[in-house]
């Protein structure tokens, strides 16, 4: 067993592309769930329209990548409006159900054979981000102790983490403002906000659009990082990982989504590496066939997350005093 190398790999994923996309998804969810109380179970849908916005623009219509990013954001706004218009006036459960359904419908649509001409269907889209790597100004990849990434990855990481920081700063500024105060009031009690003259529907819609656009940037950077888009990645559990990250870091906290993403991916990758090494060293019981490793790693990660939530229910950065009032 080489725990050092397992830990080094885990550290690389903790700051790697996955962690960065998920941080963006979680920042968006934080706007929805943490601050506004919107139970959005379809955040992966925003990631999907972000990725396909870029993918379809570039690979199908031959537009420039930068136009594709614009298209992705327009798609995200359109999805938020479509999703919110009929459901945000209803009780929150209806919104939750609709979000999970729409995200799944979108995935099945883009992956269907009739959509092949547009989305590549089950084959996805390739060569999405040639322009992005053409403007890479970095001479070499990052090499900071165990944190080593190839030059192309370093470039996309730099841009993605920069977006993460910008989104965090933007959300922090907004939540400190009277606008954010209205969102938090809506989270606590919609009717009270309404009785004080606030247009609750409009604020919920603004929150949905803002969090959705931030989430879609996660999809944009996913498409760019791999230079491909494939429908199979956008499964519902992506949303639930993002929730795990948010709750781990602390909902309604500024740094929660970032720290949550880093810890989540460290833990996930560490457990995977550990189980794999243990298996090759014949330390596991026989019923762990090689096919069961993924499942075992997920189970152990789940246990780890449960322990964190049991011993620190407010998350890393959450406010314990606030949580105690939730009764």
């Amino acid at each position, binding site marked *: 067993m080489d725990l050092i190398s397992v830990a080094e790999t885990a550290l690389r994923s903790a700051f790697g592309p996955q962690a960065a996309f998920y941080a963006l998804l979680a920042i968006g969810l934080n706007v929805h769930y943490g601050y506004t109380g919107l139970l959005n179970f379809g955040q992966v849908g925003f990631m999907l329209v972000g990725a396909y916005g870029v993918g379809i623009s570039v690979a199908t219509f031959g537009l420039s990548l930068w136009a594709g990013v614009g298209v992705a954001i327009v798609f995200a706004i359109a999805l938020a409006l479509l999703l919110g218009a009929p459901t945000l006036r209803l009780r929150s459960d209806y919104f939750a159900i609709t979000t999970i359904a729409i995200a799944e419908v979108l995935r099945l649509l883009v992956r269907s054979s009739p959509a092949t001409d547009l989305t590549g269907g089950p084959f996805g889209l390739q060569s999405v981000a040639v322009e992005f790597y053409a403007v890479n100004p970095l001479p070499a990849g990052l090499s900071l102790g165990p944190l080593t990434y190839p030059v192309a990855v370093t470039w996309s990481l730099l841009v993605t983490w920069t977006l993460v920081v910008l989104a965090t700063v933007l959300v922090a500024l907004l939540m400190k*403002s009277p606008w954010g*105060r209205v969102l938090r009031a809506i989270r606590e009690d919609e009717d009270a906000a*309404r009785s004080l003259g606030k247009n609750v529907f409009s604020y919920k819609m603004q929150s949905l659009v*803002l969090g959705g656009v931030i989430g879609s940037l996660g999809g944009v950077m996913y498409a760019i990082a791999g230079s491909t888009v494939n429908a199979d990645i956008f499964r519902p559990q992506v949303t639930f990982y993002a929730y795990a990250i948010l709750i781990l870091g602390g909902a309604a906290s500024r740094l929660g989504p970032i720290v949550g993403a880093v810890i989540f991916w460290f833990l996930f990758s560490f457990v995977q590496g550990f189980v794999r090494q243990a298996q090759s060293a014949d330390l596991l019981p026989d019923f762990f066939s090689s096919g069961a490793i993924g499942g075992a790693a997920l189970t152990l990660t789940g246990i780890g997350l449960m322990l964190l939530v049991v011993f620190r229910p407010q998350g890393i950065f959450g406010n314990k005093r606030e949580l105690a009032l939730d009764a």
Partner: protein
Amino acid sequence: MPDTSPMPPGPLADVAHEPCVAKPDPILVADEVRRSFGGLTAVDVDHLEVQRGVITAVIGPNGAGKTTFFNLLTGFDSPDHGSWSFNGVDLTGQASHHIARKGLVRTFQLTKALSRLTVMDNMKLGAVDQRGERLLNAVFSALWRDQEREIEGRATEILERFQLLDKQDDYAGELSGGQRKLLEMARALMVGPELILLDEPMAGVNPALVQSLLRHVTQLRDDGMSVIFVEHDMDVVMNISDWVAVLAEGRVIAEGPPASILSNPDVISAYLGSDEGADGFLDGE
């Protein structure tokens, strides 16, 4: 004890003690407002005028439609039929937040303190026309900092009056039940209401605090606001209201100054089903 006025103050002195009567200077006029849930007609108010600058109590047995009527007037429910106007402006079909901004603000029977907001944030939320509540302005604190400071000043004044100032940094969820009632009333004042609708402001509040709440309600009137409140406690109604409207089965069955209501046979039978129990009605709630 707050002042006990057996006779209504000036403007209502000449008004007949009968349901649906016209008032000299009504701030709110409701016409043929009906709301039914399935087969049950919850509200069926033919005509009701609420005088400006006085405290009007709305009483009635459980299920009389008082809260439903409040919900209709403030846009939290829509009527099957009817219209109502506030300061001469038709409010029929308006969204609740528009109605609140026009100066008709309500509180709730079950207190809605915003638990995970501080007392001060609860207060500041009440202010209307805040520049910083627009998404595009929100990022630039220079655009709203001055207004925020002014709002905070106003909130501090009101909190001081309601003896909540030392709680301003506490979460609203940490307050006692009575303090939450006070906060809800104080927060409603931040909207700058002309007419404030209090839905059972004394419910679940300990007797010591009731006196303080009563003083605050009469203070609202003395500050020039009009007040409508729903209440079950007859002592409270007798004490502070200038005019009483009695609802039963959704209809206005009696109106008049408090003293006239107690002896009204229609009211007594609505509460007790018969004339025999008049003593019980007078003694009890």
